């Protein structure tokens, strides 16, 4: 039997938050599933969801005119997906496609964008986690663009 999927409070992105903080997020989130090959994000569409991936794999795709789609990075259970809701114009910059069936939590990003009377404490805590995530991804992208395997590199 496969192991049970992590609950919202067990997801690495939220683990360690107080029960009150988790319940604030829980109120604005719901569980979602996608079959293999489904698009979770489509370039150009309105960005208003943060996905916390629970299982399965998702690949970020960039469509390059004349060259077709290029696969850029794989994300999986434990990762987060979708950050374009952070800043205007709130549109996805990439496609994200399920490589295999995906289970996730979809969080309404409007509750994460900035300090609100409803989230006086949550926002800086999550902002630090987003920053950590972005920093890790930046490091990976830097290494990827060095093209270290090129002959003579």
């Amino acid at each position, binding site marked *: 039997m496969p192991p049970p999927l992590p609950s919202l409070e067990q997801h690495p992105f939220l683990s360690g938050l107080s029960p009150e903080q988790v319940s604030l997020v829980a109120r604005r989130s719901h569980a979602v599933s996608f079959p293999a090959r489904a698009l979770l994000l489509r370039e150009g569409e309105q960005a208003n969801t943060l996905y916390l991936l629970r299982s399965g794999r998702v690949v*970020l*795709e960039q469509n390059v005119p004349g060259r077709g789609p290029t696969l850029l990075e794989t994300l*999986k259970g*434990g990762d987060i997906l979708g950050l374009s809701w952070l800043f205007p114009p709130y549109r996805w910059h990439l496609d994200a496609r399920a490589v295999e069936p995906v289970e996730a939590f979809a969080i309404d990003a409007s509750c994460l964008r900035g300090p609100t009377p409803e989230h006086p404490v949550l926002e800086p805590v999550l902002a630090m986690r987003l920053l950590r995530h972005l920093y890790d991804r930046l*490091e990976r992208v830097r290494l990827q663009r060095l*093209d*270290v*395997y*090129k*002959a003579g590199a």
Partner: protein
Amino acid sequence: MNLHAPLSTFAAGPMTPEPLRVRSIRRETADTWTFSIDVSRRPGGFPFRPGQFNMLYAFGVGEVAISISGDPGRPGELLHTVRTVGPVTHALRGIGRGGTLGVRGPYGQPWPLEEARGQDVVVVAGGLGLAPLRPAILHLLRHRAEYGRVSVLMGARTPEDLPFRRELMRWRTNSRLRVLVSVDKASPGWTEHVGVVPALLRDVEVEPARTVAWMCGPEVMMRFAVRELERLGVPDSRIHLSLERNMKCAVGFCGHCQLVPHFVCKDGPVFPYERLRPFIHLREV
């Protein structure tokens, strides 16, 4: 048994290449070929330890260091996997089946297979870095019961640039190894991981006190992978890297391969990271 094979078995002195015939050549990727060199006339074949290299001489053109990529349990078959990048490797490629090249070696320090006995092993390979790791992986497979969990993390630029691709997939299906493959870039249809190799370390359960890591690939990639292993708590003494430096003599005379106090040809190419740490970030002049 290869583990106890002498570090060097020179037939004609350490600086004299031995002429040997190319038995066959197999294409790995667009610019990489595996040469099988005929050692049938040598008594005992060509014993070596995983991680060691030979100097291959394209007569009249020059000599380059190339790792041995074959099975240490089969010293009757000497394999080298070569990427054509410049004059010598192009000349080697031009020799063709039945032609003759010069071989001297084996040289260098091997992967610490004894130290890894009873431990979990994480092998991290980037591109052609799989060539010197392949003999170690074949050794682990041959003596599977003596080691704990074995994971092979392999990265390449694109799916087409993966050397030993069919074998990697075979290792994966035989399930005695965990094999994770990642490429920097792919087109739709590729269902393995896309991204950099160090990211694959997040998919491996690592118990720092019982894990050893061996890696070979582009140096920048290894530095990122070391950082990830350090984050996971693996001590520097348990991380081993194989380095490449420009080589001439391969026996510690000429100084071409010097890395401050170390000679990569005789103290390496395999080093524990704790010995490299102070020097690996130094720029060469």
